[in-house]
């Protein structure tokens, strides 16, 4: 089963199995230290498993996957590059773009992507000239420019204030709806998980394992207003009860 066609199964940390259908948005929530981020780093191939095996599409993973785009809690934009040049970075690394990379050739594509998250007019600014929310938007663009099959987000909005965070939820929602990209979001913000995801996985700490798989029963696309409805609150409340500590 491939990410692109059919459902995909990813088994990690020896006890965790996640299923992601193409175009699906899943979120993994849990208390800090439960291994959410480690799980993501395992899947991306940044950390090789210390013991046991990691299978993606039934095949063991030994190094970083080519079809992955990743964004982190800090935007991690390279300060000497403009927003545009930062977004272009994956194309300088990943095949087949790398082979005949030129800035001129791909900058229209990168500009369009930046525009889709509301960064028109900021493409030629350096990271320090952007607000935290803008940096994070650019960082998500960078994770998507090489058209990965799956987007891995490691608490991407954790360092932002509440208002900016909600703005970015909407931006991510629209981006995912428009591009039909498969997303795995790791977060400790239950409202964020319920607002954005089709399916929420709850992890417990030590041992890091999935204790509940919860399909969010709210139709998508969701408006921010949804977060104030009783049914939304109920889902969040149920999830909260599963997480102690």
């Amino acid at each position, binding site marked *: 089963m491939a990410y692109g066609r059919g459902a995909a199964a990813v088994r990690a940390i020896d006890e965790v199995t996640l299923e992601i259908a193409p175009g699906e948005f899943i979120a993994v929530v849990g208390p800090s230290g439960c291994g959410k981020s480690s799980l993501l780093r395992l899947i*991306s*191939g*940044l950390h090789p498993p210390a013991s046991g095996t990691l299978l993606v599409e039934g095949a063991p993973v030994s*190094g*970083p*996957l*080519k079809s*992955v785009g*990743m964004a*982190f809690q*800090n935007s*991690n934009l*390279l*300060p*000497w590059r403009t927003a545009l040049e930062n977004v272009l*970075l*994956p194309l*300088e*690394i*990943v095949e087949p773009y790398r082979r005949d990379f030129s800035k001129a050739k791909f900058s229209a594509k990168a500009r369009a992507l930046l525009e889709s998250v509301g960064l028109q007019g900021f493409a030629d600014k*350096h990271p*320090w*000239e952007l607000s935290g929310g803008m940096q994070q938007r650019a960082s998500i663009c*960078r994770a998507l420019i*090489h058209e990965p099959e799956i987007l*891995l987000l490691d608490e991407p909005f954790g360092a932002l204030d509440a208002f900016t965070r909600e703005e970015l939820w909407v931006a991510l929602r629209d981006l995912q709806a428009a591009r039909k990209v498969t997303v795995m979001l790791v977060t400790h913000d239950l409202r964020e998980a319920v607002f954005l995801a089709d399916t929420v996985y709850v992890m417990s700490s030590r041992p890091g394992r999935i204790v509940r798989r919860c399909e969010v029963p709210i139709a998508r696309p969701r408006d921010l207003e949804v977060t104030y409805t009783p049914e939304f609150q109920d889902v969040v409340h149920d999830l909260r009860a599963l997480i102690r500590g």
Partner: protein
Amino acid sequence: MDKRELAIRVFSPTAFVVAMFVLWEIVCQALDVPLTILPAPSDVFGALWRYRKPIWDNAFVTLWTTLAGFLIATVFGLALGIAVGWHRALYAGIYPVLIGFNSIPKVAVVPVLILWFGLGEIPAVLTAFLISFFPIVVNVATGLATTEPELEDVLRALGASKLDVMRKVGIPRSLPYFFGSLKVAITLAFVGAVVSETVGANKGIGKLMLDAQAAFQVPIVFAGLLVLAVLGILLYAATAAIEARFTGWAFRGQSNR
């Protein structure tokens, strides 16, 4: 640059230098200091003008030996710094040798260089090189060693090789350290060239001063010192300008806010 800024950056250093020379002149005149102890600025500038031809010829030699040594040090320092920053085993292996080598006073090496290469410009170039490459190596290695792992993760998550990570993150990240070290290195290279000329050479400001001292031509000695100071300032300013040009992003707090 507004008026206030202009006043601070141009007027105040000029005023300070002029005041220094005036004070020096007054002290020499008032105390009637003998010419062979401390010549007054008027004597020094007089000697500078009268002997402008030999002074310029020798200053030119000092300048190019300094720059040649500095250029070799830049290339070699950058390469060695990257090598040392590349792998911890290389770092551990090379570092003690580097420190040991750097601890040797370079003036003690000049006679060896003269023995090998004879009197001439080569020992000056090599001394300038030997004295100035160390800060470049250390700074480049430090820049690489302090690269944020998070920035490297961005590339590693894309499947980038170690070489890619170095090219896209490590080296650009350490450039401010590199250019910062050039300011130190150019000054040291200058010192190295002059030291070498003073120990043994047939040209250069150091050699000129040595000859003038032997002939009790103290105003020429001071004229030489003055030329050295001015050249030092010019070399430093040129390097600082290059630094600002290439690593503006690292100084954003001062220029862009």
